[in-house]
């Protein structure tokens, strides 16, 4: 038993991975379906009201998926990550680990990698499902755009989990960590309303998948990608420093 296996067991024995996968896979199935059949669905439940929708495009299938996972998928991932990354939320467990593991980096990295990795794999799985279903129901998507979109979305999830880790090390408790993380992640798009800074912010990557299948260039996201990667590393460093300095 080592710290990597400990985190693997935390994810599997507490069924947290099921919660993460369920939300991404669910929207991966539902997104393209609702884009394809929205007209029929509204007709069925609309009480005789006739509404005409334009013919769905493949990008609509991905947009439905992407919009949902950016909200609910991210919320579930942040909550689960907060449970694992508030390392000192329980004093006795923290004593057990801190007195046996000399380096806080050694303590943090397995937790971060397992949670963020599960989130990224679930996101990629959901996206692949949405892609397949969109291709079958609506039409083909550009593979390069999808690959780049998945990469950008994954980097954003790594950033979001790094925010959780930093907040968790500063606040120690799960609920405040979730609240602060969500506040930060919601504030970024608001700051992005200022046109000059928008393309530099991590939140710009959130629209990567949708934007790319609608014809945006991957280079449009480079600035945001660099800032997000740098921010993720800085948050990790900050988390390690905070944990090392904190007294129990």
């Amino acid at each position: 038993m080592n710290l990597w296996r400990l985190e693997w067991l935390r994810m599997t024995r507490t069924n947290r991975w099921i919660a993460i996968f369920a939300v991404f896979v669910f929207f991966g199935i539902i997104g393209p379906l609702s884009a394809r059949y929205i007209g029929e669905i509204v007709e069925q439940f609309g009480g005789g009201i006739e509404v005409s929708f334009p013919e769905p495009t493949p990008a609509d299938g991905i947009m439905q998926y992407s919009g949902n996972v950016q909200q609910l998928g991210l919320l579930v991932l942040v909550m689960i990550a907060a449970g694992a990354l508030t390392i000192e939320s329980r004093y006795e467990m923290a004593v057990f680990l801190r007195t046996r593991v000399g380096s806080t980096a050694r303590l943090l990295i397995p937790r971060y990698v397992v949670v963020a990795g599960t989130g990224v794999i679930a996101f990629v799985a959901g996206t692949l499902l949405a892609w397949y279903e969109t291709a079958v129901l609506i039409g083909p998507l550009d593979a390069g755009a999808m690959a780049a979109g998945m990469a950008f979305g994954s980097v954003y999830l790594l950033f979001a989990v790094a925010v959780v880790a930093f907040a968790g090390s500063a606040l120690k408790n799960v609920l405040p960590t979730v609240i602060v993380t969500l506040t930060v992640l919601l504030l970024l798009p608001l700051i992005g309303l200022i046109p000059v800074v928008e393309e530099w912010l991590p939140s710009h990557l959130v629209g990567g998948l949708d934007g790319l299948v609608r014809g945006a260039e991957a280079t449009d996201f480079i600035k945001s990608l660099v800032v997000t990667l740098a921010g993720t590393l800085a948050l990790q460093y900050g988390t390690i420093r905070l944990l090392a300095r904190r007294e129990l």
Partner: protein
Amino acid sequence: MITTNSLIKAYGPKLALDDVSVSVPDGSVYGLVGPNGAGKTTLLGILAGLRRPTSGSVEIGVPRERMAVLPDTPQFEPWLTAREVVDLSRNLSAPEVPPARVEEVLIEAGLEESIDVRVGGFSRGMLQRLGLAATVIGDPQVLLLDEPSAALDPAGRREVLDVVTRLRGRATVMFSSHILSDVQEVCDTVGILRDGHLLFEGPLNDLLVGRAGTIFRIRLREPLDGLVASLQRASWAGSVEQLAPGDLRVTAIDPGQAERSLIRVLADAGAAVISVTPEGADLEDVFLELTS
């Protein structure tokens, strides 16, 4: 092995530790006693490296990896089994210890029935034993135990004390406890803390012997009128209490003179003496005397 020099720990204006200098001999079992809020947990936390002193220094003669700490209410991930908890501890603190040792340690801790049971259902006493097993698996050279027997039933307490006793000479053990009889039983050195001050530190015998012999318990065949008054008149006698008919407790302010004169006073009074025994002070008496 463990020394602190003028240790001060302040939480805002309050001093949790005020100029505390302890010295824990190699291989000894050191009992840290004191009322709630005396600073015991703070001192253990600083020694464990979990808290930083405001000033002063700590010297521990072993690497951090050779130290083990057991908090007063150990907790573990509820979805791990007892075996996994101890194996994790082994892997983190002493990977060179063979995995087979995990089961042996759990059996020694009295958890043989629960080795592969998830700890979420463990009682507080079982968690305490598991914590102890996870602490000793790495064969540490220094053990810091915070109230290790507080949550245990008498049998569990006995087992913990036996484990601590077995460690004497093999490791340096410092443990805090409210149960003074436990400290008196297993510790050879004692530190008494109150309000962040170290009131006494030294061998347990030094603490108790200075007070042993100052009290004599006298049992008589039958109560004797006038004996109490005779004893009270003696220059060496402090107080004389009649606990029951024929049962006296005499406190001597001059123990040497008392040893020379007490029997003569009894003989002169014509007392039918069953026994005269010096009453040793116990740690509880001394603790109350020092901390009150």
